[in-house]
């Protein structure tokens, strides 16, 4: 983390002041640190703790330590109990990964196209820029209901009109693509906004030089725009991927909580935890989701050398 560059150099005799400043900084940070410990640290610790227990949500005090049995355990009768042995969990993992990869990819491509269009000069540019903000401003639950209506097989513009009365959402295999379309619609504008901000910070004289050298727009895009946008693009990608990996609301609203459990990792964890009241099992699944996401963060950060400062 870089030291604040705008602060003027202080005189040497200020060791006492430095120490005082450090103490003051700690006091200023204290409320935030307490809040984070209370709403993030402590609950996370409890999730890890309960993942090793057989415990019920309604009576967490009556718990028994069972080690990693929530993750993997086969009874003497050969019944698989651990969630890692549950095909439904792996289905949820597969669907979440598919959802993440496809929707983030499409969002990036569409976001790039929209940003490039809005970045060029034409009449009505301001209006399109404004229109871009609309899907982003719509709450996720609302956009999920809007699309559930569009997909409806007897009333929906898409379900009845385009697809001729097919119930797309009734079947998990088709539903996942319908959900991807909703997520892409909702968040492409976010991607486009970030890419647009990146585009507008690019130096214009480089493009003039490229024009003079006779480079085509196509070459300019691949050789100039894309490499220069890389840092902004990567951070946007990381954040969108993480959002997609922890997705819950779109599935829950459009498919219902039961089907959401086989479509998203979060939905599966919530079903175990809240609907089935299995505090131990649900915590174990939550730990798995947490670890998967953390591993992906680390891979992103090291592979692409994403810098956050």
């Amino acid at each position, binding site marked *: 983390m870089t030291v604040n560059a705008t602060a003027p150099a202080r005189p040497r005799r200020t060791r006492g002041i430095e120490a005082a400043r450090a103490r003051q*900084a700690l006091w200023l940070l204290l409320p935030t640190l307490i809040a984070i410990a209370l709403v993030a640290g402590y609950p996370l610790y409890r999730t890890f703790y309960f993942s090793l227990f057989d415990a019920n949500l309604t009576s967490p005090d009556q718990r028994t330590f069972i080690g990693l049995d929530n993750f993997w355990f086969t009874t003497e009768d050969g019944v698989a109990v651990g969630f890692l042995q549950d095909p439904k969990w792996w289905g949820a993992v597969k669907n979440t990964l598919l959802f993440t990869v496809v929707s983030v990819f499409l969002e990036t491509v569409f976001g790039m196209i929209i940003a490039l269009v809005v970045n060029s000069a034409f009449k009505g540019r301001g209006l399109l820029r404004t229109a871009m903000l609309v899907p982003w401003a719509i709450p996720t639950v609302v956009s999920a209901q809007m699309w559930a209506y569009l997909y409806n097989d007897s009333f929906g513009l898409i379900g009845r009109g385009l697809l001729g009365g097919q119930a797309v959402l009734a079947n998990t295999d088709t539903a996942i693509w319908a959900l991807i379309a909703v997520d892409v619609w909702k968040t492409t504008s976010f991607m486009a906004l970030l890419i647009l901000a990146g585009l507008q910070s690019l130096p214009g004289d480089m493009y003039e030089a490229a024009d003079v050298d006779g480079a085509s727009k196509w070459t300019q895009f691949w050789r100039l725009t894309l490499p220069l946008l890389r840092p902004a693009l990567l951070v946007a990608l990381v954040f969108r991927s993480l959002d997609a990996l922890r997705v*819950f609301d779109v599935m829950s609203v459009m498919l219902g909580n039961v089907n959401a459990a086989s479509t998203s990792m979060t939905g599966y964890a919530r079903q175990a935890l809240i609907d089935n009241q299995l505090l131990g099992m649900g915590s174990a699944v939550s730990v798995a989701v947490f670890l998967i996401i953390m591993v992906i963060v680390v891979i992103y950060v090291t592979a692409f050398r994403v810098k956050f400062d």
Partner: protein
Amino acid sequence: MNLKTANPALYYLQRTAFYLLVLLIAVYLLAPFVWAVLTSLRSPGDLFLTPREFIAAPTTLQNYAQVFSYPNFQRGLFYSLIVAVGSVLVSLLIGSFAAYALGRFRFKGKSVILYIILGVSVFPQIAVLGGLYSFLQGADSALNAAIEASSSGVLDRVLDAFRLYNRPLGLILSYLIFTIPFTVWVLTSFVRDIPGELEEAALVDGASPLQTLFLVLFPVMMPALVTTGLLAFINAWNEYLFALTFTSTNRTVPVVIANYSGATQFDQPWGPIMAASIVVTVPLIILVLVFQRNIVSGLTAGAVKG
């Protein structure tokens, strides 16, 4: 320009293709929302019509009347407002303290704290769901025990106000998990951009850090506070997983909309659902359009820089 004189046909072809693309993008971005608005203005019986007849059907406000007379929806709006405003105010207050410390002070462990805050902002909410749920329930049963033990009616009411499960206070508290890291991160980057001379002068005059923050930096940071507050408000207003889990009857508006149902599961009242959706969305869209520029700068400070 060169192409316009050299090969007008190709030029106009290119322009036409470009404007078609613009039109396509606009339709893609707006059509679902426009259709939802249209549906909210049609009577439920008209849903069976073909799209063309549907567009031409008479406009009615009956869906809006029905939605506003639905007690759960009214309460949902009320609770959403309390929860979103509450969590934003708390985060802005304590987040600006932290941002000031992180943006201006030099001390050991600063980068560790920044990374912790960044780490919390990539947290999957599900990882704390069970822990928070049992924490809220546990705090409430402790309160219940205290209320039973106390004999004073006033104390009972004071203690009752601190209940967390199914109460706005519990949601405000749990929303801090995403509003605080966000506000701290964005405000820190704003604080860094404020010229240091301002506050150096206050320091020389012997102002305490809190005086400096409130009297010198806050006025300068106003646009940043508004932007950050607005973005945090939008996140809190839209939150669904915690609201669904930590409330049973005092639902916020997204949960009310998600569970808006008719007589049977197969009889979805789409007209009222769309009307309710429009009601919760339009204020956000207006806010976003008014604060367009701030929002884009806030998003890029929050997302692109980290």
